[in-house]
């Protein structure tokens, strides 16, 4: 695997981040008042998916493992929420998140233990096969999972505050829930930032770049990969839990392997060699798919075409390409 070291983030000073991060944060905060409700809800979806792809990219960008089965953890998070509603009549969003973390930890450890023994194509295929097992179980045990009908999840309580029945759900989504998602998203970004900048994150990258050398300096490859897998899966599980109240329903769709493909698409779209790439990719893909579905019956071909062009022409993704252009522009300015 060719190595493109992530030098940019290492050299970046905090000041440079502030330049674009602060206006963006401000925009996100005032969004419900700045744009119409539909766009706000769409951004909420985008932020949720961003958490999932951020988690996914810990494996791809930083550890060098392409998982084609991340729909499994997303689904585990979503179904954990649905089961908590169905069997324990839980209503609190906080408990949902806890439940999703617990469930996705269990599943990730189980799957990860098997998967991290392998790399490259075998890793990808194994992750796909395991996610399909979960899909078929969710589809099959309709008594428990509702099968293809799915399971309903009513409006949750945020921080214990009940949303009175009959109140405008749209307003709930664009105001209350949107901010809740924004906060969780910010926390997740912060945690992931710490993870990839920690010695652990560095070790992952060295394993990615040269496995043999990493082994020689004493890193236990499998253990590191397993922990990365775990963190990755839990992030995606949290995203699944946040996603469910937006739709009010979870179905086996989200466990089916093309959804894993979409997650990969999002990471590549944003640029999987960068920290912020997955976030940008998730938000943009979300918007792109919604636009495509609304525009034409052949939305699948449209997305496929975008993917092919992307991979051919802009392999570093949106963020990567912007960085390249920016670096080139600055280079010229100094000549």
């Amino acid at each position, binding site marked *: 695997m060719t190595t493109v070291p992530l030098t940019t983030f290492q050299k970046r000073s905090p000041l440079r981040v502030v330049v674009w991060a602060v206006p963006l944060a401000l925009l996100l905060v005032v969004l419900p008042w700045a744009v119409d409700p539909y766009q706000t809800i769409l951004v909420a979806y985008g932020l949720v998916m961003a958490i999932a792809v951020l988690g996914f990219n810990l494996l791809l960008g930083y550890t060098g493992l392409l998982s084609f089965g991340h729909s499994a953890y997303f689904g585990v998070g979503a179904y954990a929420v649905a089961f908590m509603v169905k069997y324990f009549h839980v209503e609190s969003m906080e408990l949902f998140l806890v439940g999703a973390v617990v469930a996705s930890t269990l599943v990730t450890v189980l799957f990860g233990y098997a998967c991290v023994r392998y790399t490259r*194509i*075998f890793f990808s295929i194994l992750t796909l*096969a395991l996610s*399909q097992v979960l899909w078929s179980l969710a589809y099959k045990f309709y008594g428990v999972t509702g099968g293809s009908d799915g399971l309903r999840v009513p409006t949750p309580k945020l921080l214990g505050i009940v949303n009175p029945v009959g109140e405008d759900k749209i307003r709930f989504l664009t105001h209350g829930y949107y901010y809740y998602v924004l906060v969780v998203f910010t926390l997740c970004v912060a945690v992931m930032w710490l993870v990839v900048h920690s010695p652990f994150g560095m070790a992952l990258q060295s394993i990615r770049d040269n496995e043999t050398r990493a082994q020689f300096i004493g890193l236990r490859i499998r253990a590191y990969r397993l922990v990365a897998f775990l963190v990755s899966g839990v992030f995606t599980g949290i995203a699944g839990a946040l996603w469910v109240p937006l739709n009010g329903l979870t179905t086996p769709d989200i466990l089916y392997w093309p959804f894993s493909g979409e997650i990969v698409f999002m990471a590549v779209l944003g640029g999987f060699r960068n920290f912020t790439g997955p976030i940008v990719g998730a938000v943009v893909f979300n918007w792109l798919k919604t636009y495509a579905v609304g525009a034409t019956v052949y939305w*699948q*071909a449209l997305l*496929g075409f975008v993917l092919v062009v992307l991979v051919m022409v802009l*392999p570093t993704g949106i963020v990567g390409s912007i960085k390249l252009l920016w670096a080139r522009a600055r280079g010229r300015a100094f000549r």
Partner: protein
Amino acid sequence: MDILVVHLFNALLYASVLFLIAGGLSLIYGVMRIVNLAHGNLFALGAFATAWAIGQLFAGSDSAWLFLLLPTGAILAALLGAVLEPTLLRPFYRRPEEYQLLVTFGLLMILEDLIRFVFGAYPRSASVLFEKAGSLHVGEYVYPRYNLMVIAIGGLAALFLWAFIYRTKFGVVLRATSQDMRRASALGVNVNLVYVQAFTIGCFMAGLAGSIIVPGQSAVLGMGVDALVLSFIVVVIGGLGSLEGALVGALIVGIIREIGISVFPEIELAVLYLIAAGVLFVRPAGLFGRAA
């Protein structure tokens, strides 16, 4: 006792088709180290093209002529493969393999809609051949002759491929390239040519699978995606890159599916994935594969 023979035929029927698809996938991987996620859609394309040729374009013709039209889908798939490899795949050989997966995933999506665009939204069939072949008696049961023909074609294809790969000069070149591409190139092999030939053969196999199965079944949108997952299971069990593995894997999948449906009807969906996962846990390279 007769029923067991019927069950065996069913399993062989399924295995024949799966072998052709998975064998193509495995061949492509073995030579080129590419997992073509769009492979299933070449199967679908083969099915639709043949169904269109037999069921629509030349509908009502003499059945002997219609039989000759069977390979239409296979030829079309092969042509498409010959076009796609140099244009879409070659730029990615030097790139990390993630990109190959992604470009073939994009291709999958494009082909899905392309099939719908060209052949329409309704299922297509070419059942006239299935009906013309009639049925024969297996004890007290009646069995369609056409299914036996498919099994025969599958068997012949396996034999032909084996001979091709192990008994011809081209096969030697193919194997050499798959074992060590650089050395083969250094010895004067035109690797680009070998690659496009291998890819074309792989696509031909997938298209052939679609073509021969469609008279007995039908061409339905989405069949490509389903086929891909199944062929994945086969190569996981048999080993990616190995034709013997594809054959054995296809037989195992066919038999287990048949048993599953007969004895444990509820489990039909899950059992194949479980088996694949199980094999991957224990022997990740598959029964005949090499852990490349």
